[in-house]
């Protein structure tokens, strides 16, 4: 028989509070009122969560919030097990380091859950390509100035060795170093991407790859 529900709930709350206290344990709470302590701990939780989100996004994950939730939850559960199994008191001086130790495994776990579909090679050009190309044409005209348009089109000319030489030439023509050209083209691409996918969303909403940021629990996998 399990313990009564209210006792279990109280324990869960206690565990939550302990975990929040643990996350803030590398910061001094001396001189704070109880309300301030609660506020500081909550802020610390949000801050660590936000950093985890960035970390997973940098790794290329398209649902970083989901993985940040999962990492914190795993850290909490592991801490709970550790506390109940160890006879000596817990001594983890670096709570951020402790949470970080879960990041790699959570990410690898997520990768194994992803399915990359095997796609048939199409026999000809599909109209979907034309939508993307039309949108790109529109955005090149509408979202960029003439100079930027010229730079980005020139940047993509040539292949292999010819491309490298071409980029040196383009950089020289525009009085930029090759690295500065590279950064500038990245910025242009970023603007183009926003514009192209906004355009595609209007023309063909069904062909936009999914938005990444929805929280974990709402995610359903077949």
């Amino acid at each position, binding site marked *: 028989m399990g313990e009564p529900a209210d006792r279990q709930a109280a324990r869960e709350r206690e565990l939550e509070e302990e975990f929040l206290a643990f996350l803030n344990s590398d910061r001094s709470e001396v001189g704070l009122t109880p309300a301030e302590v609660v506020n500081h701990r909550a802020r610390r939780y949000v801050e660590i969560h936000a950093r985890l989100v960035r970390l997973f996004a940098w790794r290329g994950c398209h649902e970083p919030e989901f993985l940040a939730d999962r990492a914190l939850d795993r850290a909490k559960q592991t801490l709970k097990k550790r506390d109940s199994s160890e006879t000596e008191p817990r001594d983890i001086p670096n709570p951020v380091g402790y949470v970080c130790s879960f990041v790699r495994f959570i990410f690898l776990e997520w990768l194994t859950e992803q399915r990359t579909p095997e796609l048939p090679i199409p026999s000809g050009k599909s109209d979907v390509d034309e939508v993307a190309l039309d949108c790109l044409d529109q955005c090149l005209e509408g979202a960029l100035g003439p100079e930027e348009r010229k730079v980005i089109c020139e940047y993509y000319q040539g292949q292999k060795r010819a*491309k490298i030489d071409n980029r040196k030439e383009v950089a020289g023509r525009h009085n930029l170093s090759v690295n500065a050209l590279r950064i500038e083209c990245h910025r242009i691409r970023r603007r183009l991407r*926003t514009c192209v996918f906004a355009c595609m969303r209007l023309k063909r909403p069904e062909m936009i790859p999914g938005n990444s940021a929805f929280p974990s629990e709402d995610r359903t996998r077949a």
Partner: protein
Amino acid sequence: MKTGHELKVETHYKNSGLLEGKLRRYILGQLTQQDEERFDQRLMTGDDEFLQEVEEITELLHDELVEDYVSEKLSAAERTAFELRLLPSRKISEKLMLDRALRVVARRKKISLAEHLRGWLHPVLMPAPVAVCTSVLLLAGGWSVHRIGLLQGRLDEAASRQTSLTMAQASLRSQVDAERQKNDALARELVVAAPRPADLKQRLTSTGGQGIVAVASFILKPGSRRGGGQTARVAIGSGQILVELKLDVGVDEYPSYRAALYDSSDSELIVEGKIRAVPAGNSVYVPVQLPVQVLRADDYQIRLSGAPASGGFLMIDSYPFRVTRQ
């Protein structure tokens, strides 16, 4: 470059070579486990300036890895790592699609230039009756130019066709992703209307059916669109940890958003930035998660701003709500 739009190039990347190399190996999973964990810690504890730099370099590296992948410049190990770690990401799929489209457009522009040149040479190739003998050499030269132009055109056409095929493949991949997203959106709509499966599971496993809901979710309309002046109510039960507010923005106009929580005395409590909007059904939401510890029974509002790609923030609307404790 001084003509038209002046291109601004900042120089803070100049000393970032080492960081960039490390980030590239980090993204491709080529650091040792120990180095990776240490680097994670550094990223978790770095100051804002450092994180901003990492953010920009990482975005750049994602773009360049996509480009190198498409143009087959990655080593075998890097290619495998890219396919395993980055290809499953929808964000990377978008970048792949754009990269391929840019290649097609760049080739088309090159072809149109070649056609323009051929048109300019055409009158030279027309044999005038009085000058047939004297233009033999010119004709031979012109013919060579013409042949080279044609061959170049065919080569470009073949390359363009090849790219179109890869584009079509990418599109099919997108369609599959879109299907998956549609399923996800349907599931989300269901979740909005019904208790979440994860929560139900938690209730069942932890409390035998009468327990805690860890995260409560509410949809908020902007203040300017609410009729009748009634404030949305957010009820917080005991045992809840987070409240998720879905701010209805109607249309996703910005790459990211910033939300600031204010209490009834207009004190700013929490600010969260770089939030992405999420489409769900016919609406677009900006999800904001708040720890319940910062919420008392009081009136609050969230002021939502959009962060345009050009920088800065533009105020969108405020989302008032009233917290009640159960």
